[in-house]
């Protein structure tokens, strides 16, 4: 009796052509359209320098989107990433700066400080994973609390001040230029390439998709659901710490608000890029397109000299429009 109901053969007939395409492909025409709009709106838009600026500005948020995508595909949530972007380099920077400007005055070896920065990311991820996987707490509320807690620790450590005068080794990755292109773009590109490959061709990537798609079936197939989920949280926080290091390096300073509000853009880019909030669906390539799309939009808005007070409103509206376009051209409807 139930066999008929189980067959979801009935599908919407319209836009059938797009159904076979991954939603990430549907983003490409949108991106091309935006590039055309940008070049018409401003002559400077298509200059290589401007395009590199877009890529560099996108590269840091892109690492966060990569991190969030992994967590979302595994069917979980991590809101605390943006606070990790602030806290991890703040601790690293604190170790290498003088007491006069708010640092520890210990002047630790900068390479060790970079190691500490990344280690902080790992520890935060491990703690998130412990609360969510081992204690079974809700990921949304755990990482929301961590978002607030970590930001508070960052503010407390810096007493609201900004750490500057960072040693060049500490800022190198964020500020270096390799072959005429900022190092952060190379790094980000490499991570996406490796990530895309691993998600497609490594058992760990397939395990993440399976867990997000149906954790019970994944468990019955012998996948260690808890362990994989935990590792995903650790990797995500590690990527956030790296993003923070790059950001501090680019700016040459660490403010107590570093990373603030980045989580909203991160989610927007991931979802526009076709990552399902219900888990199990989406590709890193799509997520990258989502980031680029938002980067281009930001750049066009800035170049068009829209009054800065209105940029946020325009940005929000464009995210909604992009989501609708993606949905209409084949992205999955949100199940919730």
């Amino acid at each position, binding site marked *: *009796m139930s*066999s008929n109901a*189980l067959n979801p*053969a009935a599908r919407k007939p319209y836009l059938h052509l797009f159904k076979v395409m991954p939603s990430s492909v549907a983003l490409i025409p949108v991106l091309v359209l935006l590039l055309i709009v940008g070049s018409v709106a401003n002559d400077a838009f298509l200059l290589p320098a401007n395009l590199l600026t877009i890529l560099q500005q996108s590269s840091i948020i892109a690492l966060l989107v990569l991190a969030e995508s992994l967590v979302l595909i595994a069917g979980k949530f991590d809101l605390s990433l943006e606070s990790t972007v602030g806290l991890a380099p703040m601790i690293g920077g604190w170790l290498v700066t003088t007491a006069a400007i708010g640092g520890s005055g210990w002047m630790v070896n900068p390479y060790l400080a970079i190691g500490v920065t990344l280690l902080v990311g790992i520890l935060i991820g491990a703690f998130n994973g412990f609360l969510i996987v081992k204690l079974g707490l809700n990921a949304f509320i755990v990482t929301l609390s961590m978002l607030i807690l970590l930001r508070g620790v960052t503010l407390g450590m810096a007493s609201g001040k900004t750490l500057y005068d960072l040693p060049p080794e500490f800022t190198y990755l964020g500020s270096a230029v390799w072959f005429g292109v900022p190092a952060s773009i190379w790094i980000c590109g490499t991570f996406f390439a490796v990530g895309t490959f691993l998600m497609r061709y490594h*058992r760990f990537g*397939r395990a993440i*998709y399976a867990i997000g798609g149906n954790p019970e079936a994944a468990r*019955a197939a*012998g996948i260690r659901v808890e362990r994989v989920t935990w590792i995903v949280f650790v990797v995500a926080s590690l990527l956030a710490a790296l993003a923070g290091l790059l950001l501090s390096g680019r700016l040459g300073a660490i403010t107590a608000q570093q990373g603030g509000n980045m989580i909203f853009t991160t989610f927007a880019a991931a979802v526009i890029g076709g990552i399902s909030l219900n888990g199990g669906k989406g590709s890193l390539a799509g997520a990258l397109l989502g980031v680029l799309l938002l980067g281009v939009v930001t750049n066009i808005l800035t170049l068009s000299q829209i009054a800065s007070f209105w940029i946020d409103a325009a940005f929000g509206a464009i995210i909604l429009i992009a989501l609708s376009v993606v949905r209409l051209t084949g992205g999955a409807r949100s199940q919730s």
Partner: protein
Amino acid sequence: MSTPAPSLNPAPVVVAVGLSKRFGVTKALSDVSLCVFPGEVRALVGRNGAGKSTLVSILAGMTAPDSGSIHFSGISAPPTHARELWQSKVACVYQHPKIIPTLSCAENLFLHEIMRGRGLISWKAMRRAAREHFDRWGLTIDGDALAGTLNMGQRQLLEIARAVRQGSRFLILDEPTAKLDGKEVDRLLTHIRELKALGVGIVFVSHHLDEVFDISQTVTVLRDGKKMLDRAIAGLAKGELIEAMVGDASAGGVLAGARAAIHPRVARLKVSRLSCPGSFENVSFEVQAGECVGIAGLAGSGKEAIGEVLAGLKLAEAGTMLLDGIHLPGGNVSWHNRAGIGFVPQDRHREGLVLGMSVADNATMAVPDQLGKAGFISPSAVARATRHIIQELDIKTAGPGEIVSSLSGGNQQKVVLARALARDPAALVLINPTCGVDVASRIALFRAIIRVASRGAAVLLISDDLEELEICHRIWVLRSRHLTREFVPPWVARDLVAEMEGMAA
């Protein structure tokens, strides 16, 4: 307990005439009639898939019949979409109570009034009314307690109290005792007798035939959507009732006698004194190479847990499992799988498949180590492995890359079996492996299972489906948490059912 003579209450609470319902090509119900008088308890029995659920769903106004008519107390039934009107005519209590666990018992009792009422809620009046109501029924339920804190039996009673409070004279109890223990069943039956004395007409669906004989005056037996028996319980022999339920199921089986040859004296799977609290106790059996051993039991008997423990999904409390002399540690699916256990779980949508992933991804999910080095998965190895299994199991699909959710139920189930067979298992553990699939797929699945057994694997088939169990060399029945009796062919389907139901035929 006296039965009010129908002649004193001339208008039956429900008269259904000639109900038929078709789902696609399946005729779920054909020309079934049913009549319940005030104060009558009519048992509705039949095996899984006999059409009970469809009939209940039609009587409860959830499904519109293709043909036939229903009258409640002489008045024609309201249209199917008029939920409110139906609810005033008939109350249905399901196996899983439909209460809201986060609201108090009193709120659950008066939910309808609260939702329809105007103005503010008077908690004081509601509490008082709830207490009166619970007292009248002798229910020890605290109106302020959250409904979620009640045990199963109390939830059932709360729901029955809510149903009769809304004034319906016709009550459907759909397997209300399935999740209850003995004491709770007794209490529920007592309350049903009280309702009967008040002149409520009841349809009582149950798998437990002793309850049927205990509580009801009349019985309707369905088989394959048709009414096989409709008579008074008094003077009815239990054997006659079971005969009507089972018919000659074994004769029509497409697989009768299709068994693999046993490799004698090679016991591959040995289970001894295995216990899992709440599901089964002290279970011991052996499965030889090429042998298919069945474990039969009713829904809720805990038979599935045996399979889940063997697969490493659940941890047993005591006992040992040996596969080819190697001790299985329990609680580690990956370990058990590598040791040689192939597992088809109970529910393909819940545990069997990741519906959004491809046929290839699902079929090879348990064996990533066979598809490349250092965790990397070679697409060509995946495609090769999947193409092979697609051919072997005759999976109807556009190719290894097709998303599993677009396959038919039968082909989805073949993918689940493919996953279980991916490592060429020494022992294959199957739970209801052909549940809800079409006949052609069913035959293909069983051919594959028999083929695996013929190659020398041990097969454990956990099922409540008599046709599935036909391929077994032996069947153990699990009842009241213990393996109670072993059947060897040729068994009589009636005896097997009687043993599962827990009564000597």
